[in-house]
Each structure stands twice: as structure tokens, then as C-alpha cells.
């Protein structure tokens, strides 16, 4: 008889890592110390674009506790140039990217000098004694102006502000027809320009790095998403031999792509520690983080959608300007390119063209931020589908259904050449409409509109998909990405029957320790509690490509599964030897090898002990069950879902209140429903924030005016609605687990659902767009016939902490 054990996969387990993460009684980088630790503080440029004509650090060197002060010139050779791993075109233009600026600063917040002191406060005090002379250069802030003839240049040596021009054309690729012809023959054209505003990732734990050069290997602790990539890149950038570096990402408090980076501060910390032969640490302040950690989004999207009068879409043309900021960081140029494959979304466009110009400005560099390219694309197409519906007087959901891939049409090769393996948009949408009460809300909307209610109801739809599980290495190669997309894992059976799982994924809040334990518990038939997941240290998890792009479960956990399969295969041979039977006579369930048709069985944990003793193993069998595997997916995975949002818009003030938010996501097989729901909630919060609250704003001199959380408005729980979340479950066929990834889904889907709802609420006032974030003033101005991008910078000091200046005499 086989014991039936409730499977772990699918169980709503509380996360085993939460107690230490939530209480903070754990190893955050800033909690760590080593003997003789010195502290770094960075002096940052207050101006956006200037030549450095002189830096005087002598007074700073004499300040109490100061050990050394370095300028960019002092470190010029050792610091090298920060890496960009994604040259999107062969002729991509990129300036040198020094960690400390050498001759010129190109964004406000760029580091120009570093102080090393015994105490953190002493390091900060000494910053004020450094004297820098700047000779102002013209700032380059506006994307369209930056690419115009005669524009001022960020990097005059490049001769242009255009870094790269990247094109995908379905006619040229042979994946579809010619979009110009589709536009020429269109019965209906929807032409729009949308702005994806600049956002700041704003992870909870500030960035922090500690470098100890006193061992044989130099150890780098960093609050990073990518310890493995960081090790390689630090080696390549600074010339430190790779085998002399150990990188540890201890517990990391969020990243959202913001810690998918090789930062100037990490490079400087390594260079300075090496030069001084002493350990150093740097932890940023929140305002330092908002100013200098990479930003996200920032695109200007010119869009042309062609359709027939009957609502059938016939072509889509996308022309993007994407703001790189002042430099190309790790994957900066590739972010908009990731979106190239997502503008067509779930719809059967026969013709498609995507063109992107990557542009330099004198702003903080941009790079990956939750969704990275895909939210921008999804927002654009989902807004356009609502606009087409309005143009044709059709229900926006019904119009989408007319154009989307039907569930019996999978697998489906898109106009971009991607093969969507599975999906069921009808099922998710039907469920969402039912939960939302779609028809009743539409009826209420009509009634309130006729009544002239001062508070108008709007309904927004977003039927999204995304490509995630980054990624098949061959696809990344075809996109000129500098690395593969595989992931590595190892499973180690300890003599006592406990299990160590080593993963190359690098959790920073996702819950890998819990999810991986659930998967391995089912596979090996050992208790959940008996599994330890090791990650984030290049010594204990020597190979990996880390965590981003919703890839950990689809790629990283698959590697774990493959390693586990090898453990079972090794154990089977030994179990057969122990029970004196043929391997084929054994079946493995619930942790036991059982001789078929008998009750004779040996537990895998007993096999592990026998292997440890190694007294009686078959000839030629090594005394170890431990196994490694590296998994490289054949395809992306394609989560999808239907998000519906109802908003109440106060037409007297422009204030938007989300009244109801329903989402039905299909993320394939679910390992842990609590983790999935948590990811969806957090993702929704960030997506709604783009729609309504967050925007990084620079003034005309290039200064970030949203440099504190008093001005960069992140919603808290009280600002967010109750989320009604549910799922459909269409397993992915591109991996054995049937999983699709959930980390970015909520963020990608929700932004256009909210904006569509806001525009829907006020469309009868003649409004067909409101620029994000849809602030009360923008909504009110649009209702009253004004421009849709109202709001911007004031010229006078206002109230509130963020507006205080040094001369304000604040109490």
C-alpha cells in the first residue's frame, strides 16, 4: 500500500523566511560588520551637466576620522567603465561610464568623489569640505528635443544623442505583412502619442555594499538581485581575477529591477577597499537612492493602429523614443526592446512594425523596473484598444474578444514570431466580468451619466499577456544580449536525510525558500521542514544567473527539479542494489523505492545514509547522491489575465478613487497560492501607482524635484482599494512544472486598466487621454477642456517638507 501524502505544491504555506525578514532580525548588508570596518560617503553633483574644472579635497582629508578622499581622476584607471551587457545594435553608441565622474558630470546625483572615514558620520561631515568647481554645460532634458537637429549634446564626443535605432518589421522578418500598406488601406486609424513617465523603483531596503579585501578572496556583500552577474562584471570591470572574488547577496529587501545593476558604488567600494587593504561599507540614504539609483520607464510612444470598421485590427506601428538617461547601465538599452514583442499583445495583428530610438539625456540612467519594457507596451496597446472601441462605439471587452487569439488556436505564432504555448483569454475574462458585475456597473454608469452626477463612474479593461521566464539563451543571443538565460541548481542529500537545495536564483523577497522547498518535498518525498534552500553566495551557490524577469520559478525551480531527478536516478540504482532487484522493478513514490507488487521498500533517506557509509555500493558507483543541473528553457512563458477597474472621478476636483478592482490571472500551475496572491497585490500597487501617483520630475535645470518620499508619492495601504483576485489555471507547456511566473503580472496589467477607467469616466466631456500619473489637477484640467498633461513645476516654494529649502528657515 502506498501512503497518500497531501502534495506540497499548491498548498498555501506561510513563508518560512518571513519571520526574519519582517522583523528585520537578519543579515541585511547594513547589519553586517567586520573588524576595522571603514565607511564611505559619496559627494554627488548638484548640477545635471557640467565640466569639472577643479576639485579640492585637501580640507576634507584633514577632517576628523578621514582616512582618504578619492576623486574620479584618482581612480580613473582602476574603476574602468561600468558595464553594459546589452548592445542592442552593432553600431550602438555608448560613452565611457566612470563610477566616479572624471572630467564631466552628466546627471545631477552622479558621484564625483568618495570619502573614506572611520565613522559614517565623519565621512558625511567631510563631504561638506570638498570644493568642486563646475562649468555649466547645456542640459538635455526633453526626449523629442534631444533628437532634433542641432540639439545640445550630452556626450559631444558621440556626435549625437541617439544611442541606437532598433527596428522590427513583420514584413521584413517574414512573420507578417506590411504595416504601411495596412495603414494605407485602413478604414479606421487610431493615432496617439503616449508618455510612459519616468518612475523610481523605490525598493524598501536601500542599496548597501560591504567589501572585505583582507582574506585570500575579497568578499563583497551587496544588496543586489544579481550576485553571480555582479561577480563576473566586477572582475571584468576592475581587472580583479574572478576567482579572487566572492559575492554574497545576504537577505535583500526588494529590488523590482532596481537592484539588477552593477552600481558605481559597488565598483568604488571594491577599488577603494583593494587600494587601502581595509574593509569598507556604504549604505545609501533614501534621498540618495531616489536621486542616483537607476530609474525606470520614460518613453514617448507614437502609435498608429489600423482597423476595419467591423473592429478587426489590421496593423500596428510603434515609434518609440526611449530615455537612457546619461549612461548605458547594465541592460539599459535592452529594456525598450523587451517591449517590442509585447505591443501586439494577445491580438491577431497581421502587420506590425516597431522602431525604437534610444536617446541620451542629462538625467539619472534608466534601466529595468518591474516589467521592464513590457508594462510600457501593454499600457500602450490596452489604451489603444479602448480608444478603438470608443471610436467604433463598441464595448471594449467585446472588441478585444473579436481580435484576440481564441483558446483553441494555441499554440499560436504571433506577428513578432513568438510562439504562445497556451492561454485561455475567454475563461479569464468571463470569470473577471462575473466577479466585477460588469453589466450592472455599465448600467449604473449610464444612469449616473444621464443624471449628471458630479461623481462619474468609469470602467477600464486590461487583457494582458507578458513574455516571462527570461529566457531561452538562444533567443537572448539573437537579441545581442551579453549572457544566456539558463539557471543552475544542485540538490544535496545529507546523511541524516535532510536536504540542501542550492539555487542560482537570488531571492530578494519572492519566497524562493518556501516555494523551492515545496517542490522538492513533493519530488523527493521528504518533509518540507527538512529542506534548506541555499542561495545568494557565489561560494555556496557557485553558478547562477539570478533573479529578474519573472524567471526564478520557470527557469530556476526547473533546474532544481532537474537536479532532483538526477538524485532519484542515482538513488534508484543503489536502492535496487540494496534490495537485490532490477532498477526497473522499483517505483518511487512519497520518498520510497518500492519493489513493484510487493511491500518491500527503502526510503531515499535510507539510501542517503547507505551512500554516506559507502560500505556496499554497486561497482563503479560514486558514494554520493548529490546532483547538479542547469536548465535552459526552450521558450518563454506567457502568463495572461483580465483586469477590470472601476473608478469614481470627482468631476469638481478631478480626484480619482478606485472603487473596485478585479483581476483574474492565469499564471499556470501555482506552487503556493499565498505567494502568488502577494505578488499580485504588490504588483497591482506598483501598477496603480504609475497610473495615479508616481512620477520622477526634473526642473528646467535638470534637478530632480521629486527627491524625497514627500514629493515622490508612493501609495500606502490606505490609498489602495480592496483587490478581488482570482485565477484560471492553464498550465504552460514550455516547462515540466506547468508554471508561468507571476512577479511582474500585476504591474504590467494594472496601469492601463486604471487609466482606461479614468478616461472612460470623463470621455463624455470630450476627453480621450490624460497623461500619467492622472493627478487630480490633470483630470480636472482635461474635464475643463485644457491640456491633458497639466501640472508640472511650480516656481515658488510651497508647503510641505519636500519643498523646504535651506534658506527657508525651517523650524
Amino acid at each position, binding site marked *: 500500500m502506498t501512503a497518500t501524502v497531501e502534495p506540497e505544491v499548491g498548498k498555501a504555506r506561510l513563508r518560512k523566511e518571513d519571520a526574519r525578514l519582517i522583523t528585520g532580525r537578519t543579515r541585511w548588508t547594513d547589519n553586517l560588520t567586520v573588524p576595522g570596518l571603514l565607511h564611505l560617503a559619496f559627494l554627488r553633483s548638484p548640477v545635471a551637466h557640467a565640466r569639472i574644472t577643479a576639485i579640492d579635497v585637501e580640507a576634507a582629508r584633514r577632517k576628523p576620522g578621514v582616512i582618504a578622499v578619492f576623486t574620479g581622476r584618482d581612480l580613473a584607471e582602476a574603476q574602468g567603465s561600468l558595464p553594459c551587457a546589452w548592445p542592442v545594435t552593432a553600431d550602438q553608441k555608448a560613452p565611457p561610464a566612470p563610477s566616479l565622474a572624471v572630467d564631466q558630470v552628466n546627471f545631477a546625483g552622479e558621484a564625483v568623489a568618495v570619502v573614506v572615514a572611520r565613522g559614517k558620520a565623519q565621512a558625511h*561631515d567631510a563631504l561638506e569640505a570638498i570644493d568642486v568647481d563646475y562649468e555649466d554645460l547645456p542640459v538635455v532634458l526633453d526626449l523629442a528635443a534631444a533628437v532634433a537637429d542641432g540639439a545640445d549634446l550630452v556626450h559631444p564626443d558621440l556626435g549625437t544623442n541617439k544611442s541606437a535605432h532598433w527596428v522590427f518589421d513583420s514584413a521584413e522578418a517574414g512573420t507578417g505583412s506590411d504595416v504601411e500598406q495596412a495603414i494605407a488601406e485602413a478604414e479606421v486609424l487610431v493615432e496617439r502619442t503616449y508618455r510612459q513617465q519616468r518612475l523610481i523603483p523605490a525598493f524598501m531596503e536601500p542599496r548597501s555594499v560591504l567589501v572585505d579585501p583582507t582574506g585570500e578572496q575579497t568578499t563583497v556583500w551587496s544588496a543586489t538581485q544579481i550576485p553571480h552577474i555582479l561577480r563576473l562584471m566586477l572582475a571584468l570591470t576592475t581587472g580583479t581575477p574572478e576567482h579572487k572574488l566572492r559575492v554574497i547577496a545576504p537577505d535583500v529587501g526588494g529590488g523590482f529591477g532596481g537592484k539588477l545593476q552593477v552600481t558605481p558604488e559597488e565598483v568604488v567600494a571594491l577599488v577603494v577597499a583593494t587600494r587601502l587593504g581595509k574593509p569598507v561599507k556604504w549604505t545609501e540614504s533614501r534621498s540618495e537612492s531616489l536621486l542616483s539609483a537607476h530609474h525606470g520607464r520614460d518613453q514617448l510612444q507614437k502609435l498608429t493602429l489600423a482597423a476595419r470598421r467591423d473592429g478587426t485590427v489590421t496593423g500596428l506601428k510603434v515609434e518609440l523614443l526611449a530615455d537612457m538617461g546619461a549612461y548605458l547601465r547594465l541592460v539599459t538599452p535592452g529594456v525598450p526592446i523587451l517591449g517590442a514583442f509585447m505591443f501586439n499583445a494577445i491580438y491577431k495583428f497581421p502587420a506590425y512594425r516597431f522602431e525604437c530610438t534610444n536617446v541620451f539625456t542629462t538625467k539619472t540612467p534608466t534601466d529595468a523596473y518591474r516589467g521592464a519594457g513590457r508594462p510600457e507596451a501593454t499600457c500602450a496597446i490596452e489604451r489603444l484598444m479602448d480608444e478603438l472601441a470608443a471610436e467604433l462605439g463598441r464595448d471594449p471587452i467585446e472588441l478585444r474578444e473579436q481580435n484576440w487569439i481564441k483558446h483553441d488556436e494555441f499554440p499560436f505564432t504571433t506577428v513578432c514570431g513568438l510562439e504562445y504555448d497556451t492561454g485561455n483569454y475567454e475563461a479569464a475574462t468571463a470569470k473577471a466580468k462575473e466577479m466585477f458585475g460588469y453589466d450592472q456597473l455599465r448600467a449604473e454608469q449610464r444612469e449616473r451619466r444621464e443624471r449628471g452626477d458630479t461623481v462619474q463612474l468609469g470602467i477600464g479593461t486590461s487583457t494582458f499577456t507578458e513574455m516571462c521566464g527570461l529566457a531561452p539563451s538562444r533567443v537572448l543571443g539573437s537579441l545581442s544580449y551579453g549572457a544566456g538565460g539558463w539557471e543552475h541548481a544542485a540538490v544535496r542529500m545529507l546523511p541524516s536525510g535532510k536536504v540542501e537545495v542550492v539555487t542560482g536564483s537570488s531571492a530578494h523577497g519572492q519566497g524562493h525558500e518556501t516555494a523551492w522547498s515545496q517542490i522538492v518535498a513533493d519530488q523527493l518525498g521528504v518533509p518540507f521542514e527538512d529542506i534548506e534552500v541555499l542561495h545568494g553566495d557565489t561560494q555556496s551557490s557557485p553558478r547562477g544567473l539570478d533573479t529578474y524577469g519573472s524567471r526564478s520559478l520557470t527557469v530556476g525551480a526547473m533546474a532544481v527539479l532537474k537536479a532532483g531527478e538526477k538524485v532519484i536516478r542515482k538513488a534508484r540504482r543503489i536502492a535496487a542494489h540494496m534490495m537485490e532487484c532490477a532498477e526497473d522493478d522499483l517505483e518511487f513514490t512519497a520518498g520510497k523505492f518500492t519493489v513493484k507488487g510487493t511491500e518491500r521498500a527503502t526510503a531515499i533517506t535510507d539510501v542517503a545514509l547507505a551512500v554516506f557509509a559507502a560500505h556496499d555500493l554497486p561497482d563503479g558507483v560514486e558514494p554520493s547522491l548529490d546532483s547538479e543541473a542547469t536548465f535552459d528553457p526552450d521558450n518563454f512563458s506567457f502568463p495572461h489575465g483580465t483586469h477590470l477597474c472601476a473608478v469614481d472621478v470627482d468631476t469638481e476636483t478631478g480626484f480619482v478613487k478606485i472603487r473596485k478592482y478585479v483581476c483574474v490571472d492565469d499564471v499556470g500551475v501555482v506552487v503556493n497560492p499565498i505567494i502568488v496572491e502577494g505578488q499580485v497585490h504588490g504588483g497591482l500597487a506598483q501598477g496603480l501607482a504609475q497610473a495615479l501617483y508616481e512620477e520622477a520630475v526634473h526642473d528646467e535645470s535638470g534637478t530632480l*524635484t521629486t527627491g524625497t518620499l514627500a514629493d515622490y508619492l508612493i501609495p500606502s495601504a490606505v*490609498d489602495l482599494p480592496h483587490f478581488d483576485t482570482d485565477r484560471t489555471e492553464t498550465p504552460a507547456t514550455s516547462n515540466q512544472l506547468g508554471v508561468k511566473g507571476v512577479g511582474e503580472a500585476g504591474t504590467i496589467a494594472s496601469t492601463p486598466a486604471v487609466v482606461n477607467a479614468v478616461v472612460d469616466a470623463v470621455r463624455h466631456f470630450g476627453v480621450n487621454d490624460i497623461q500619467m500619473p492622472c493627478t487630480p*489637477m490633470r483630470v480636472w484640467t482635461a474635464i475643463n477642456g485644457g491640456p491633458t498633461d497639466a*501640472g508640472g513645476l511650480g516656481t515658488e516654494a510651497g508647503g510641505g*517638507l519636500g519643498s523646504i529649502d535651506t534658506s527657508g528657515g525651517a523650524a
Partner: protein
Amino acid sequence: MIPAAFDYTAPSTVDDAVRALADAGEEAKVIAGGQSLIPVLRMRLAAPSTLIDIGRIPELRGIRDEGDALVIGATTTHYEIQRDPLVRSHALLLKAATDTVADPQVRHRGTFGGAIAHADPAGDLLAPVLALDAELVLHGLEGRRTVAAADFFVDYFTTALRQDELLVAVRVPKHTGWGAHYEKFNRVAQAWSIVAVAAAVRIADGVIAEARVGLTNMSAVPVRATAVEAALVGQPATPEAIKAAAAHAADGTSPTADGNADTAYREHLARVLTSRAITAATGV
């Protein structure tokens, strides 16, 4: 970030605090709950030589009934004001505004007097203090003086406090039985007011007998919407009468422009929010 170094003293009496203030000179700052000052110090927007902590002076804390007025000690916390039965009975407007201040953590640390002395034009307690005709009790080397709220707020973050003076208490005339409402408009719950309106009304025989309306963030200092008050008196508490009076809300104001609101939008908001605040205060 880390504040610049400073000296710290925590006197236990008002006299000692005032002496410390005089001794420390221009570069001294008074700290109470620290909810505004500490961020400013950490960002090094200010670097005072001395911090005088008045949090350990018992006589500065608490709410007393003095017949026709409540006297609220300067270091009484927002949380204490929210919970105080005297405030609820006699200065409901103050409770209504305090309820909207920041979040529970700030309300437990932050002090009433600190918020007023800080004089942030977007601070929520200035307009109610002005609307209720409160008086500020200031104590300096030369003794005590009392300044009307209308004379206390001088400019952005600037008050009538002299270098050696401490705000020790706020005397709030009782408005027993008045209806009150604080209508706050901001983008997220923890943000400062873009505009807010403090309204208190006394209704007698179905008619508005008296009205007090104060505006937050409509000028460099809190302002009274005197034209609205005058227009309300003697009117029935009807939506039409209230709306007509509220049309004057922005008269005489000079609001700032920032990323959240330009001046025209602020003026519009003042009118809409004034109408709503009075409506809520009258219970119409």
C-alpha cells in the same frame, strides 16, 4: 542621512529652556516631537549648533479647562488631542483637523505646539487655530506675552516668536456646540494638504448665526476666508446659500504653484472644498 553634529540639552523647566535658548543664540533650534525637524536635520537642510529638547518639561503638556477657553500645552501630542473629551466638546474643529495629520506614528510623536511653531503653510493645524481665534502664549526672558493667531504667522515657516521665546501653550476659545469639519485635499493619505479648509459654524433657529473658515496652503500663511464668513451669517443652512458664500473662498488669497496644483486650480479647490467643509459642518 546623518545630521551634522550639534549640542543637545533637555531642560526640565520653561525658565531653563528659555535661558538655554538665549544662551545658544541664533543657531539654536527647539525640538519637541521632531517630526518635522529631524528630517530637515538628516537632510542637512538645517544645521543648528544646539538642540533644546522641550519634551521633558511636564508643565508644557496637557489640556486644561480655563472657563471660556481651553489651554493646550505646546508638547501635547496630536494623539492626545484626538482623544481628549474637552477638545471634542469645545474645539471639535481642532480634533477634526488633527485626525487628518499624517499617520498614527507621527500623531503619537508629533506635538501641537511644534506643528504651529513650525508654521508650514501646508500644515493642517494652522488654519483651525486661526479660525478659532486662538491665542499663542509665548514665554521669553522678559516673561510671557500673548499673540493672536492672526498676528503669529508672519511668512513661510516664519512666526512672531523672538529668538529667546518658546511657544508654551495655545489658548483656544470654547466653541461649544459648534458644528465643525476639516476638508483636506491631498493625493495620498500621508501627503501634505494641497488645499484644506477648516470650517466651524453655529446654527441658531435654522440660520447660520456665526461662521469661521480658515484655509490651509492658500497663502504663505494660513488665511481666514472672511468674505465667506460674512456671506454665511444670517443665511439658512441650505446648499444654495453655502455654495454662494463659498464662491468667495479664494478672495484675497495668494496661493503658490507647484507640481500638484497651479494657482488657478488651488483657487478652484478652495471654493469647492469650502462649500463641502461648511456643508459637513452644518450637517446639511
